[in-house]
């Protein structure tokens, strides 16, 4: 029984399958894009200390063959064989990544996944689509990592640079910075000492774009559960995934109708209310038969109201493909990506059909995002309490006790000092609690020993197992005199809420953020108040013009999260 993972989900491999000889399939494709899918074998510091464990098209296996690249097969764009018990002790993490070869960005990809197959049976799958990404050119899809035992994590994290940047992130060396990404890796391959015996011996690698899959397939050991077949790297099934974040897309949609049958500009819906007899609505006897009944006379039908042409016959409208006919990703630009799931089913009859898109997402993890704005925590899993902001519970099922998180909690300090009390409730028991607050976007951040600082206003809930403390950042001009943040450390999940879609920025020597818009930052970075730096013009008349900005300093790898809303 395959489990569906969402981004951030983790599990012990032993919970997924008893086997240690695993097949890992990655599917990623986009119109006109080519991908390099690689596996990085990293040490305990998540660095590529041994280049021989960078398994990619040019080096399809690790020295002791515990990680082997098998090529495209069984519907997967790339596949690997991972033998967990043969991985040397120095390797603590296998990171499966995909990077765009040539032009393109991750927002253009169609539905993709990473899956683990053991004993011929798929045991877990993590799916993603381009709508989760923007301009990234590389993607860290999923990790196997060693924490007492081997575990699997659905990562789904985009990465701005291409393969070269990924390599650099993992501590690999890229010999020629200025070269285009396509040339960087081969150059590095020749320069790095560990690459001395590449099995392909294709040191210069003149153009690896096209044959990326081919060399990998040649030495395929074929232990995979399915026979290799010559599927193109981009299966046709992914083709309808048109680039959705390109505003340009709207123009061709108008000019060249792709799917509308011209004969019946309206009344020929892709999902008409298909009840054979009377139309599904308009049962009033003796009335016009309703829209379904008007289908046959398409063009010359009497204008249904006034002298105006019928709805669908107005040329500018009629040429547009209707909602249902558009591929789900090619929606009109007026609609934000990944929304309005109700449209197609709405045409089908019945309450259940209309509400189907909003159904509760299946259980499987302690924290499950139900949609962008709703988070469900299953208290039965993990058995520990959750601390949530008061009033954030919208629904619960099961036997759940809510109690006041008693005095002594640092949140009181926050509250007293800012005048806006932050009160928490402690949820214990057995059951599911649905949390949401004023439609804010919710993000689950799972910590595994690392730390994060979250602006106190943006904390919605967190596992009680996390250590948390309140930090105060004082600065002139900050409303209330200081910015209160909660620092979380340990293992557990923090739910952070943002108004709108946030941006995650890496910390560089010149990273600034408005103190009102900052949501969170990795706790290893250092915060400096810099009032002098004016990034914003005067927001409104009477405003002093002095805005408080926070500057961040930290080692590479630190990040900050900023929301498009200044509270």
């Amino acid at each position: 029984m395959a489990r569906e993972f969402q981004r951030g989900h983790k599990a012990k491999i032993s919970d997924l399958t008893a086997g240690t000889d695993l097949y890992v399939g990655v599917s990623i494709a986009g119109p006109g894009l080519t991908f390099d899918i690689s596996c990085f074998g990293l040490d305990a510091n998540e660095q590529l200390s041994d280049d021989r464990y960078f398994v990619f098209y040019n080096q399809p296996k690790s020295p002791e063959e515990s990680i082997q690249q098998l090529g495209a097969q069984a519907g997967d764009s790339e596949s690997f064989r991972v033998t967990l018990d043969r991985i040397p002790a120095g390797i603590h993490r296998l990171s499966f990544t995909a990077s765009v070869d040539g032009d393109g960005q991750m927002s253009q990809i169609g539905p993709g996944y990473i899956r683990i197959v053991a004993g011929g049976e798929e045991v877990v799958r993590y799916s993603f689509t381009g709508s989760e990404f923007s301009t990234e050119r590389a993607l860290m899809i999923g990790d196997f990592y060693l924490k007492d035992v081997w575990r699997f994590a659905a990562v789904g994290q985009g990465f701005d640079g291409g393969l070269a940047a990924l390599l650099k992130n993992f501590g690999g060396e890229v010999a020629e910075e200025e070269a285009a990404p396509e040339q960087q890796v081969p150059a590095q391959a020749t320069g790095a000492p560990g690459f001395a015996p590449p099995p392909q011996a294709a040191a210069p690698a003149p153009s690896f774009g096209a044959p990326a899959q081919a060399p990998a397939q040649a030495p395929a050991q074929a232990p995979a559960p399915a026979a290799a077949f010559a599927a193109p790297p981009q299966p046709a099934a992914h083709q309808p995934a048109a680039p959705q974040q390109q505003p340009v897309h709207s123009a061709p949609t108008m000019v060249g109708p792709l799917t509308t049958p011209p004969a019946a500009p309206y009344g020929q819906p892709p999902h008409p209310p298909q009840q054979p007899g009377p139309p599904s609505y308009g049962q009033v006897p003796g009335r016009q038969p309703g829209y379904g009944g008007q289908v046959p006379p398409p063009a010359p039908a009497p204008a249904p109201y006034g002298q105006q042409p019928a709805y669908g016959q107005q040329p500018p409208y009629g040429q547009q493909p209707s909602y249902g006919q558009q591929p789900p990703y090619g929606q009109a630009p007026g609609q934000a990506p990944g929304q309005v799931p109700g449209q197609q089913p709405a045409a089908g009859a019945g309450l259940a059909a209309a509400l189907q898109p909003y159904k509760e997402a299946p259980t499987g993890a302690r924290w499950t995002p139900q949609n962008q704005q709703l988070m469900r925590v299953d208290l039965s899993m993990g058995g520990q309490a959750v601390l949530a902001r008061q009033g954030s519970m919208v629904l619960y099922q099961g036997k759940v006790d809510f109690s006041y998180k008693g005095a002594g909690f640092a949140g009181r300090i926050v509250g007293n000092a800012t005048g806006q009390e932050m009160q928490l409730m402690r949820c214990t028991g057995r059951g599911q609690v649905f949390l949401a607050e004023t439609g804010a976007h919710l993000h689950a951040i799972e910590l595994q020993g690392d730390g994060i600082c979250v602006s106190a206003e943006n904390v919605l809930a967190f596992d009680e197992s996390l250590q948390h403390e309140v930090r105060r950042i004082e600065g002139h001009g900050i409303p209330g005199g200081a910015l209160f943040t909660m620092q979380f450390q340990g293992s557990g999940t923090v739910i952070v809420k943002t108004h709108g879609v946030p941006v995650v920025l890496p910390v560089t020597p010149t990273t600034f953020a408005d103190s009102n818009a900052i949501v969170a930052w990795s706790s290893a970075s250092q915060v400096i108040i810099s009032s002098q730096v004016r990034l914003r013009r005067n927001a409104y008349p009477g405003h002093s013009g002095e805005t408080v900005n926070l500057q961040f300093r930290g080692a590479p790898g630190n990040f900050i999260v900023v929301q498009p809303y200044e509270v």
Partner: protein
Amino acid sequence: MNAMNQQLAGYAPTPVTARMENHGRAMLKVAMQSGQDLFARTGSMVAYEGFVQYEPNPPAVRQMASQWLTGEGAPLMKCTGDGLLYLADYGADVVVINLNNDALSVNGTNLLAFDAHLQWGVERVKGMAKFAGQGLFNVQISGTGWVAITSRGTPIVVDCGRGEDETYVDPDALVAWSPNLKVKGKRSFKASSMIGRGSGEAYQMAFSGQGIVVVQPSEDSTDRLRARG
């Protein structure tokens, strides 16, 4: 077509394929025809095309929803005529439901429009005496036809009949539910002053039985269509 039209072209209405459709996530498009009247929340009309007439205080509503009436008049208006009608509720998500001999109870605040031929009735939400002064009413709709409801944020539909435990909902987040569910108010003393919002009163609605509950990800139950002066 000039450049501006090109850019706005993506927002033109799509051809009509059903009585009710979403236009974007927050706007409802209703294809009106004579003889197929519609009840819509008063004040929810944002645009219309064609010949549509509005009756702000229809006698039917005055009768059916007498307790729901306030000094401002009936919360529902009757729309008749031929054309395209666009309705919205201050940016709330619109969910279109094509009832097929189903029944649904909708929180009055979250009701946007429904076919006039459907059977409907207004009742005070059971067990919610606390809200008596605030006019928390629900509209029970049944039959075969179209209903549009609103939700502040993407709603979630939860199946109640999964376990023997009841499902508890924050009344401010409640959007709609199956009318056959048993509803009762629940004051959780243990959680006093903890859950819920405003008065600090911990109060939830407990649903039991077989059916669904629709909840919005927001405790904002302000009736914006009514609140405006």
